[in-house]
């Protein structure tokens, strides 16, 4: 058995999420190869080669794979898939975009967002916004799987895998990259942060999110938001935590002015410790919070910042 892991990378660096997927691959068992596809990705391939448990890094370095557009990237993986029993990727917007396309090209089902490996063909995954956990078994010879990173601890960096080039070049006449507008942030990445502080509709305005910044700085936290806060235009949508946004499972999650709708809980209820700050003591968020503080966030936040 052998497993191909699609490396996730951003801004010329290997994303930490890849190490979580390698951990999931280790639980399945077998040789683990990492595919690094993109343009000018030599440094990323070297980082991938250091991940524990990786046998080989295969590098497809070509302009065709810049921005990992679905059409050429899926064609590349489908080309290589014949050598493998499993193809894994992060359940990120990249993995979710590319892998179902690979699965259909290979005429197999895809298993989305696994949170646990039961055996080589049996996996656990959340359904209904995380309100039920399904155990599913694949009958396909090739298993195409996206991995929810919060379900697996990252592997370390003591490896020294061989790096080899892949010379297959997918031609893509159908889609072209136009532009990217990435949100600028010096804080830790939301999906990987140990502490997350999120604001909801109760924050009242985008300016008031600055009240979270001082606390985030002191705790080294990432700042998130509920859908209500995003829809109200307080913050950009890449900050959204929830069923349709990012799934996080930090050590500490602080929900401020967030009522705790099912769709938001789906994105954060696996956090180790949850703190809720809300003026409505009936808010559903208090049912999942380890520590709840009922009160006015405009008084509580400055006090909390001063006492940390």
């Amino acid at each position, binding site marked *: 058995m052998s497993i191909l892991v699609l490396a996730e990378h*951003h801004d010329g660096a290997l994303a930490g999420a890849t190490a979580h997927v390698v951990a999931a691959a280790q639980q399945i068992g077998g040789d683990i190869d990492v595919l690094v596809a993109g343009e000018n990705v030599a440094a990323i391939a070297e980082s991938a080669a250091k991940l524990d448990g990786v046998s080989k890094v295969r590098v497809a370095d070509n302009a065709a794979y810049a921005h990992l557009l*679905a*059409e050429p990237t*899926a064609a590349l993986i489908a080309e290589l898939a014949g050598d493998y029993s499993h193809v894994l990727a992060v359940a990120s*917007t*990249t993995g*979710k*975009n*590319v892998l*179902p*396309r690979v*699965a*259909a090209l290979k*005429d*197999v*089902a895809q298993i*989305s*967002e696994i949170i646990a490996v039961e055996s080589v063909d*049996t996996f656990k995954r959340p*359904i*209904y916004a995380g*309100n*039920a956990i*399904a*155990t*599913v*078994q*694949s*009958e396909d010879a090739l298993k195409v799987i996206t991995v929810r990173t919060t379900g697996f601890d990252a592997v370390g960096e003591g490896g020294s895998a061989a790096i080899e080039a892949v010379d297959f070049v997918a031609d893509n006449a*159908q*889609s*072209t*990259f136009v532009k*990217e*507008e*990435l*949100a600028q942030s010096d804080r830790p990445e939301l*999906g990987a942060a140990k*502490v997350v502080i999120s604001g909801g509709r109760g924050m009242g305005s985008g300016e008031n999110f600055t009240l979270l910044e001082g606390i985030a700085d002191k705790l080294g936290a990432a700042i998130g938001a509920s*859908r209500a806060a995003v829809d109200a235009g307080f913050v950009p*949508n*890449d900050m959204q935590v929830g*069923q*349709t946004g*990012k799934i996080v499972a930090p050590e*500490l999650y602080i929900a401020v002015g967030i009522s705790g709708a*099912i769709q938001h809980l789906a994105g954060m*209820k696996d956090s*180790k*410790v949850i703190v809720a700050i809300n003026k409505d003591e009936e808010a559903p968020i*208090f049912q*999942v*919070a*380890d*520590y*709840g*503080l009922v009160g006015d966030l405009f008084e509580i936040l400055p*006090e*909390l910042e001063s006492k*940390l």
Partner: protein
Amino acid sequence: MKVLVAVKRVIDYNVKIRVKADHSDVDLTNVKMAMNPFCEIAVEEAVRLKEKGVATEVVAVTVGPKASQEQLRTALALGADRALQIETDERVESLAVAKLLAKVVDEEQPQLVILGKQAIDTDNNQTGQMLAALTGLPQGTFASAVAVEGDKVNVTREIDGGLQTVALSLPAIVTTDLRLNEPRYAKLPDIMKAKKKPLDVKTPADYGVEVASRVSLLKVESPAERKGGIKVASVDELVDKLKNEAKVL
């Protein structure tokens, strides 16, 4: 141009689901069902394209039991011109739905196919991408803006770090993200008119597609319950608990 929209009947998103006592699945008896929220956004986008004069015809399609005709009637009330139900009582996986939709695409030759990015029951986020692969068409997933320009469509996609815009040659497959638009409500006169719009019914066998599952559902469980927490009285107590009890600070 013709636009095809795929819709799915799912449990209403406000319903708190229950797992069956025998752990075989989620209990859907006597539960309120509705159109998947992402599919509503897909229908809305198609109707807006028609209102802008870009689309000439909007065809809504679903794969599901007889009751899913309700969701097709909703799509018709919202502005779709005609509908197609592919009737089956089986649990149909994304790949089989994509194969059926690929046959419909072959038959109808739409220039644009719009689907939701994921259904809120299975949370798979696969069908649109699979349909794109099977039809050999380009895909614009998680769309927050769609602009048709000549023989291309520019799709702005919600990606992890922000937004990405891609240009796709038509025909193309687009899947909707939440912020693409705000779906309208169906008005009573439109609901009445929708009853007279054409709705064809076919079966997977009509298309020669096998819908048998390749992924078996072994067990469905409730997630681990979080144990009830406590309410603290002050910021000082909160900081103290986080430092000394939870040890996360």
